[in-house]
């Protein structure tokens, strides 16, 4: 499941909902991305996105993860709008019988989301606003997934 929303989310509630009434899951991995203040350089952040394409792209990435690993459940929640340092940005949850699949799928989801989901961060700091530049290592991290997992 994927969700794009302005409101905050609650990692405990999301994991509880995903687990509820199930006893076939053995491993749940979560990734939580939060706003860093970068030693005071960031007072606030605005996350712009492309409504419609964002949901389509996240759904494609999630479908790809489910095709590659035996997941029992998965969730991607990404916020947009105004955020402050410490605020939650993104949550990825993967559930599987065994830990390797859950770990790998969660990392895959984050790697792909970082390079494909149409979000743009604008940081507002003491010296004005600036659009965050994409990092070359985010593209490079995709090479990890060039070969299908064992």
């Amino acid at each position, binding site marked *: 499941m994927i969700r794009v929303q302005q409101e905050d989310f609650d990692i405990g509630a999301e994991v509880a909902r995903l687990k509820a009434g199930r006893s076939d899951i053995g491993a749940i991995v979560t990734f939580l*991305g939060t706003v860093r203040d970068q030693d005071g350089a960031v007072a606030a952040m605005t*996350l*712009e*996105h*492309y409504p*419609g*394409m964002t949901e*389509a*792209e996240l759904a494609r990435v999630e479908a790809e993860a489910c095709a590659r690993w035996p997941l029992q459940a998965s969730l991607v929640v*990404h916020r947009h709008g105004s955020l402050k340092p410490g605020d939650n*940005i*993104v949550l990825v949850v993967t559930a599987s019988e065994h830990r390797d699949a859950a770990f790998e799928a969660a990392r895959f989801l*984050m790697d792909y*989301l*970082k*390079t*494909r*989901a*149409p*979000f*743009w*961060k*604008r940081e507002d700091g003491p010296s004005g606003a600036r*659009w*965050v*530049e*994409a990092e070359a290592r985010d593209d490079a991290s995709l090479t990890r997934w060039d070969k299908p997992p064992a």
Partner: protein
Amino acid sequence: MRLLYFAWVKEKAGIAAEDIEPPASVATVAELIDWLKGRGPEFANAFARAEVIRAAIDHTHVRHDARIKGAREIAFFPPVTGG
């Protein structure tokens, strides 16, 4: 077709969305960018470094050599920085 601009492409172009009908000679995303650049200094500035601009046709990432025929919505934006 509908054109959308995001992040600093939007800020530089000074517009978020518009409906346009480029000439029939404009066949690819790259040609559309060239045509947009000729519309005025804001667009020339927004697309000055055309190689860093990303494009999507109907919600799917495409390369600059993609053909635009039949597209309902084309979006231009910088490399994404979510997550």
